[in-house]
């Protein structure tokens, strides 16, 4: 069952090669076997096996079933799945069970998928190593002394370890692509507005986007085809037609122009990462693509800009965790103390750091110097992309400056940690789509990811480019020991 694409699984289920219950049990068994080491799951849905049996019964009766009926998957723990805990890996949300359904989860359910459970992440998606999680600090399946990246670290690790068929993650500044890169899987951040944010617990509303994390390109395209749908419940969702992205996967990329921005190959990029990515570029050249050197001059301001805009929005988005209506509440003598204590005890250090930063940049007297200035720079960074896409069809660069680092290595130095996202952050400020896929292994034997960046709603082209490389490179997608 392992290593099959979603399409193959769907066909196998229809041909009754195995049942949904068997497939689901297979994954539950793997979770039991490996998750003590990997720590990807915040919550396991014990009821999923009954749901699988119910699908099998319907299938046996000959009922018409949705295409992915009975295939289990898992969700990052900030994506709302009705009646399952949603903690954002934070103490402050412990015990919160949303009484409503999120749009992405609903669309997956409509397509027949079953939810195995909720996956660990950096607390409120703030972090790049999954180490800010309150309970489950997920480890990298390729080497459990190393981090899986973040914030969708649980999603990336669970896919890489074969604990689920695929997972959904979310990406605010690289939180899908960076962990995908570090765990050797494929992750796509869709265009802002492509996937509904209704049911996505907000970190930074103008940057957040849900996306698929998969072990191959075709699965990724298949999942985006399911969840990439206009939703009236999200005012920032764009009313563009739903697409079948698998139709783009021809492998023919001849004549496509791929831009190589020199700013994304700066000093901090490790030499082994650089080499792997250069090999990928050569491969594209070999496939008939035109490689164009480009410049995106405002890239150096991206991290600073991001950490003003994202924290400003977060400081407001996280105000609702006050201990009154849901989640953790600290005991206190009066209301004000209860607010203070619930938030002081409920949030971790990184979240507090960002709330304080965001509160500061929005404060009277600082607003213009920070928030407004950052918005202006954001416009310049967007313009870099617009200019680039006048010359090229897509941009190629390393996803992460390094392979997966050791747990604990960067926790004491937030700035070092923030630089893990130096190549992914600009795209969120622009709002376009971006994909990370494996392109080789570093000197330490850990996976290296290459990133393809595209213009608004150009996911189809990115998928085809990625597919062409995947077909040629044929890299292993899972550590041998977990097979």
């Amino acid at each position, binding site marked *: 069952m392992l290593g099959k694409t979603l399409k193959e699984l769907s066909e196998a289920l229809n041909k009754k090669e195995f049942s949904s219950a068997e497939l689901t049990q297979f994954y539950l068994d793997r979770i039991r076997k490996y998750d003590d080491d990997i720590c990807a799951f915040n919550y396991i849905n014990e009821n999923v096996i009954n749901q699988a049996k119910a699908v099998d019964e319907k299938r046996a009766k000959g009922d018409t079933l949705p295409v992915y009926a009975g295939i289990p998957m898992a969700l990052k723990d900030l994506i709302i799945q009705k009646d399952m805990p949603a903690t954002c890996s934070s103490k402050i949300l412990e015990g919160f069970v949303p009484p409503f359904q999120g749009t992405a989860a609903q669309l997956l359910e409509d397509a027949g998928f079953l939810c195995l459970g909720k996956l660990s992440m950096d607390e409120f998606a703030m972090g790049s190593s999954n180490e800010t999680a309150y309970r489950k600090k997920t480890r990298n399946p390729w080497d459990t002394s190393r981090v899986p990246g973040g914030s969708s670290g649980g999603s990336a690790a669970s896919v890489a370890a074969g604990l689920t068929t695929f997972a959904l993650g979310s990406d605010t500044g690289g939180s899908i692509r960076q962990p995908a890169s570090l765990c050797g899987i494929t992750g796509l951040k869709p265009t802002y507005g492509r996937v509904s944010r*209704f049911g996505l617990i907000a970190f930074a509303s103008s940057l957040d986007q849900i996306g698929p994390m998969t072990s191959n390109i075709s699965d990724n395209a298949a999942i985006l085809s399911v969840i990439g749908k206009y939703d009236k419940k999200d*005012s920032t969702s764009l009313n563009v037609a739903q697409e079948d992205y698998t139709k783009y996967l021809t492998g023919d990329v001849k004549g496509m122009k791929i831009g190589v921005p020199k700013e994304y190959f700066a000093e901090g990029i490790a030499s082994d990462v650089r080499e792997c990515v250069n090999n990928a570029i050569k491969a594209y050249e070999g496939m008939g693509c035109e490689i164009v050197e480009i410049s995106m001059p405002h890239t150096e301001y991206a991290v600073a800009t991001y950490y003003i805009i994202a924290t400003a929005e977060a400081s407001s988005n996280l*105000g*609702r965790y006050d201990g009154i209506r849901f989640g953790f509440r600290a005991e206190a003598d009066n209301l004000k103390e209860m607010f203070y204590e619930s938030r002081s005890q409920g949030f971790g250090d990184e979240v507090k750091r960002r709330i304080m930063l965001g509160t500061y940049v*929005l404060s009277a007297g600082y607003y213009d110097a920070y928030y407004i200035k950052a918005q202006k720079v954001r416009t310049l960074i967007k313009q870099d992309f617009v200019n680039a896409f006048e010359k090229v069809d897509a941009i190629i660069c390393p996803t992460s400056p390094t392979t997966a680092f050791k747990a604990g290595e960067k926790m004491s130095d937030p700035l070092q940690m923030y630089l893990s996202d130096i190549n992914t952050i600009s795209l969120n400020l622009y709002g376009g789509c971006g994909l990370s896929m494996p392109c080789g292994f570093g000197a330490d034997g850990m996976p290296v990811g290459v990133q393809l960046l595209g213009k608004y709603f150009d996911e189809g082209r990115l998928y085809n480019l990625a597919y062409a490389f995947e077909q040629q490179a044929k890299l292993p997608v899972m550590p041998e020991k977990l097979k």
Partner: protein
Amino acid sequence: MSYEPVIGLEVHVQMSTDSKIFCTCSNKFGSEPNTNVCPVCLGMPGVLPVLNEKVVEYTVKAGLALNCQIRKKSVFARKNYFYPDLPKAYQISQYELPICEHGYIDIELEDGTQKRIGITRIHIEEDAGKLNHEAGCSLVDLNRTGTPLMEIVSEPDLRSAEEAKAYLMKLKTILEYIEVSDCNMEEGSMRCDANVSIRPDSNAPFGTRAEIKNVNSFRNVERAIKYEQKRQEKVLNEGGKIVQETRLFNADTGITASMRGKEDAHDYRYFPDPDLVPIVLEDKFIDDLKEWMPELPDAKRARFMSEYGLSGMDADFLVSAKAYGQYFEQAVKAHNNPKAVCNWIMGELMRRLNDKQCTIFEAGISPENLAEIVKLIDEGKISGNIAKQVFDETAETGKNPSEIVAEKGLVQNSNEDELEAIVKQVLDANPAETERFKGGEVKLQGFFMGQIMKASKGKANPAVVAPLLKKLTS
């Protein structure tokens, strides 16, 4: 030393839309606590606001009615603060780019002149929930969370508590005309904060202002401002300084007390709400609403005076509520005696409204009924006194006035022979008074008319009786 007050009002008006501003919950007042709520207005993690288009429509209607410029592109902003009745810890409001700006309304002053009061802006925002303080605890009711509000901010153009009240009443009337709010101050659907400062004379620069919160009736607006004005005068006369602060009006004691000073003012950290896109209005949307706009009180007042020959006072009364004018015109259409119809509305009908605490169309007297009563008087069929009796009967039974008149034999008696007999009978029964009346005691006219009315069971036509009385006593 005397001072001139300078007053500006911030009025919050709850819009009477069916659903809330950012979710589909009912916008009904008075439901059981925490029943009109959903994950969106409860501010649960993972939810998003979606703007109710009616809210934009209602606010633009208000903007047009208040002579505002309508902004083609306006933006929602978050106002951040912690309070138990604010689930998201921010209120979605408008800050830098409000939907309506630069308007005005004209108010009538005591001396009959008009004064123009500027409106700085109208912006859209969501209401917060409500805390119900009980012994030992405070309970949170979030039914009101997400009720659409428009905040109407006036220029500091008001110069007395009376002007402030007149402004507020005019505002209420206009908003009722365009049916965007029921403007019920008691139920809190119209709430008012007053910015009050004083200065030595009308050429002096504005003084330091205090913001008075929690003013919840027209009477209290007047009381609160008058109190605050006196308080500030006393401070200055005693050589003190006014401090910029927020004060709370207490309706029971009639005084204002400091709530928080300038140094404790919140830093709301406004910024554009990234969950909502800007409101972009097309010309057609605005033009259609202009087209829709009903006749507003000022225009109606002028028309009532020219078309029906009513006095300014009568017209003021009839336009003070949209329904009064509607009722009036419907009645006049059935019987063209505007002045008499107006008098009946202002007199008997209002008395009944007060007694029954009902609206004009619920009083049991349709405009057609009222027209018929006036018509019966005008045709000499019933007297004014009988008419009041008919009015009450109609209201209680729902029967037509003429039906009642016929059934009860209330038709006015104009028959000279019959009336002469009654007059004679009355004169005979009161010989002493008759002698005095004949002797020139004119004031007994009223006594005799009363006796004659009584003897005729109120049906005698006074116009016929008067000459008869004169003839028989001369």
